[in-house]
Structures are given as structure tokens and as C-alpha cells.
């Protein structure tokens, strides 16, 4: 579904991502792991069009999105969350989801005026559905900036879903969460999979990645050093070396 072909991004002399190749298949949960500074976040930013790559190609669903801007990659069907949560803090939970309904389907389904001015009834009822899904229904009129940390993370995922993506890219969704919250996240990821949404999970919390993903790619210094199922990765010598070599965190 998502094909990354010899993707590179250089910042000055630094090769943040270096000739990276991997493919995410439809309907799976794909993990992207690696030590700090290994190029995970850069990869996410390249896929979602925050900045263009130096070289290489990104194909999603048969469509070339290599140089597409963020709103275009969303149109193509990729939604994302941010490592350091970026919500619209002075808007309510409900409004955060309302503005995010920008999928290609939304744009076709309703005419321009009703979409911009009010949004259709159907669109509004879908907001309710995402509120339920992320267990935020009772916080709907709360300002996003006043939510607890875990709630903000859930809202950000809900906002990504509001665009009805084919794939979501989650950038360290478990960072700063306690054990219980991680377990709840695990369940929600499986629920996403059950809905047929492909997940690209960039994560530091190993128990979650090993538990929930179907396949994993490991990055180090911008290059892929291993790819396989969780059990294969756990027994891979190159991966062990990479993590032991830099096991700071």
C-alpha cells in the first residue's frame, strides 16, 4: 500500500534518511523503530509531505506522492499524529474533529457551501462517532489545551481518523503514557486494524511494538538494518548491536 523506494533526505551534510526501502501492506500494523536520531521522524515527515526528499520515491495506493504537500497526502489517504502533540489548543474537542473532516470523500459528498459553512448532518454525526471511539464524548466542549496528556493523545488520533484515512501514521503515540494507557492504546490500534485501516507505528515503547505489530523495520543512522516479524527482529544480531551501542534511553 505504501512503497518507499530508495528514499533519502540530507540536511546539509547530514544523511538523516539514506536510501531507505520498505513497503507497508494493506491492513497491517507496521512498526518503524530505531534508536534516537535514526531517522524515524524524518521518514514520517517525508511521507506526509512536511518537506520534500532529496532523492527517492514515495508511492501510496498506486499514486506518486513524493513531492505532495501535507494536505495532498491527506487527500490521498494518509493521516498522521505528531510526536509532540499538535492540537488546536484554543478550540474545543468537538471543533478539533470538525475541522479535520477533509477527506476526499467529504469533499465530494457534500457541496462546497454546506461543507464550509456547516458541514452536513452526516459529517456531524461522524464527529460523534470518533468522540465515542476515543472515549472523549464527555469532554466534547472542553478546550483541547485543557485536556490531560493522555486525552490529548487520544484526541490527536481521533483527529487523524476524522479525515477517513486509509492509513494512519502514528509518531510515538505511547510516549509519556503509563502502563494502563499503553494497554488501552494497544486495544485501539487493534480496533483500527479491525476497521481495515493500515497503521504505520513509529514507537520507542518496545513492549507495545512487539505486541501489536505484524512486521517491523529497524532504522539506524538513516538506514534500514533489519525488517521482519517481531520475533525475527527480537533475535536479530544487527538490531541488538544498534540498540546496545546507543542504549542511552
Amino acid at each position, binding site marked *: 500500500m505504501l512503497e518507499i523506494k530508495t528514499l533519502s533526505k540530507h540536511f546539509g551534510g547530514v544523511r538523516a534518511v539514506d536510501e531507505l526501502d520498505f513497503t507497508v501492506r494493506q491492513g497491517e500494523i507496521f512498526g518503524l523503530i530505531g534508536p534516537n536520531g535514526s531517522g524515524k521522524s524524518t521518514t514520517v515527515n517525508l511521507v506526509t509531505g512536511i518537506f520534500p526528499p532529496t532523492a527517492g520515491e514515495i508511492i501510496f495506493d498506486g499514486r506518486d506522492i513524493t513531492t505532495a504537500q*501535507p*494536505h495532498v497526502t491527506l487527500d490521498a489517504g494518509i*493521516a498522521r499524529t505528531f510526536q509532540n502533540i499538535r492540537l488546536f489548543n484554543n*478550540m474545543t474537542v468537538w471543533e478539533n474533529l*470538525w475541522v479535520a473532516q*477533509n477527506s476526499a470523500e467529504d469533499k465530494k459528498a457534500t457541496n462546497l457551501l454546506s*461543507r*464550509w*459553512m*456547516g458541514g452536513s448532518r452526516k459529517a456531524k454525526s461522524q464527529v460523534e462517532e470518533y468522540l465515542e471511539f476515543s472515549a472523549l464524548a464527555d469532554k466534547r466542549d472542553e478546550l483541547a489545551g485543557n485536556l490531560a496528556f493522555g486525552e490529548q493523545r487520544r484526541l490527536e488520533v481521533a483527529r487523524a481518523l476524522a479525515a477517513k484515512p486509509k492509513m494512519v501514521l502514528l509518531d510515538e503515540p505511547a510516549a509519556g503514557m503509563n502502563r494502563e494507557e499503553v494497554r488501552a492504546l494497544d486495544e485501539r490500534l487493534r480496533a483500527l486494524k479491525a476497521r481495515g485501516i493500515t497503521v504505520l507505528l513509529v514507537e520507542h515503547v518496545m513492549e507495545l511494538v512487539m505486541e501489536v505489530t505484524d512486521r517491523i523495520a529497524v532504522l539506524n543512522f538513516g538506514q534500514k538494518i533489519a525488517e521482519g516479524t517481531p520475533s525475527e527482529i527480537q533475535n536479530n544480531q544487527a538490531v541488538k548491536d544498534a540498540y546496545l551501542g546507543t542504549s542511552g534511553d
Partner: protein
Amino acid sequence: MDFYFGMLQIVGLHTILGLSAYIILLTGQVSMAQAGFMSIGAYIAGMLTVLAEMHLIPAMLIGGVAAALVACIVGFPALRVKGLMLVVATIAFGEFIRIFWFNFDYQISRGGVKLGPEGGEGFKQIRFFPENGWSTLDVAIFIWVVAGAVIAAVWWMDRSRAGKVLRAVGEDDLAAQSAGINLTVVKVSAFTAGGFIAGLGGSVYAHYTTHIEHLNFDIVMATFAIIYPILGGLSNVFGTILAVIFVQVFLLEVLRPLGDLRNLLFGAMIIVVMNFMPHGLFSAQVASRIKGVFSGRKEGANA
């Protein structure tokens, strides 16, 4: 009595001007070019009623559209410069338009009288209201019909999804873009809408004063436009209206006995407010209570 009608007229005109900046400010862009857009509406509508002897209403609409077009063209390069650079760019653009009118001569002779803009002398005899026998009260009502329409339109837009989209861009344009919002469309639309409203306000202003000149649209006017929504706190349109009343009625009229020191007072007021209440005079709570009164329901209790 005419004094109060005059006051009413000024508040109405400045409300239109403030709301033109409000829309652009929602997207996080500070435009110091609103006085420039206003002057485009003023000169064009004035030339249409005086030189082409058009009726005021279509002339106003054409003036507004002309200002909107210019604002739209300004909006595109404005995408490339953000924050403080945009402030410099829009100040320069506003001054550019002002100097343009300073150099703009287009006069025709009718019945031995020369009509039309005459460079630094300005554009005199925009006499649509007196020629059609409108009283001060009529003009005040007319200004408030236009202002009311603008207030209603902006208020409605603000509550709609479009308003939330503008605010989302203003809060975090990267997150907004990643949530599928096309920044180019939104920012340029905001500039265009702001330009249209300013142009509309300018065309009313030209006929209200009957004599415009480039100095009417200087940096002081541009500062008025942007300071109203900032003082008003941006939570809704009513904050902006309150700010207009505060500045125009309280500050400049009630304190008039202090002498002809309007700009001095105005500048000092901005400095004081920015030091002590940088997020505006009218807190979100006051504004939401007023909003609650107008929309007939209680809202934002936890704001």
C-alpha cells in the same frame, strides 16, 4: 443630536474596518495594509458615483471587489513571508497604495467644474448623499445597515466550519495542513475577504466624508484596523465592536477636552494595554457572555 449621529457613523465605519482585519488575524496573519485596501474601495466607488454617475450600491460593490482583487494578489506572496516579515511587507504595501493615490490624477470637466481625484489635493465633491437629500440620520442608518450586514456575515462565518478552519490555521498552520487544510486557499481567501470588507468600508467612508485624500489612509488608519480585533480579544466579533466603541467613543471623544492629542492618546493607550492586558481588553469570558445573549444560549462556561 447630530453629534451623536456623527459618533454612530464613525463607530459603524470603524467596526467594518476592524472586522476586515479580524478575518485575516484569525489565520494568524497581521495585515497592516487594511487602510490601503480601504482606500481602493473609497477612490473607486467615489469615481464611479461622481465621474460615471452610478448609483451608490453597485459602486460600493465594485469598490469592494476591486479591493478584494488587490488583497488576493497581495495574499499570494504573503504566503511566503510569515510573522514579522508580513507586517513589514503589508506596511510597505499600504504606504505604496497611499503614495499611489498621492500621485493619482484623473479629472474630468463637467459644467465648468473639475471633478475627480487630484493627486495630493485629494478627491473632493463626492456628493452622492447631499445630492440625493440624505440627512445625517439617513446616512447613519445606511452605514449601520452595511455594518450590520458585515457583522452578521462575519459572525455567521465565525461560527461555521469555515471559521474553525481559519482559527485552526491561525493556531498551528502545520497541524492544520496535516489535517488536510490547504493553507494557500485559506490564507488567500482570508486576505480576499478582508480586502472586500475593507473596500466596502472605504466606499461608504468616501461618501460619508465627501472628501478623501491619501492622508486619510495612513499608518494611523492601518493601526486602527488591526488594534480593534487585538483589543477585542479575537474570541468573537463582539469584542471587536466593543473595542471600536472604547477607542472611538471613550478614548477619543470623552477625553477630547485634553486637547488635540488624539494620536498621542491612541499610541499611549496601545502601549499601556499591551503591557498590562496583552491578550485584549475584553476577556474571553465577557465576550462569550455577550455571545450567549445574542445566540440565545449559554456557552463557553468553562472558557
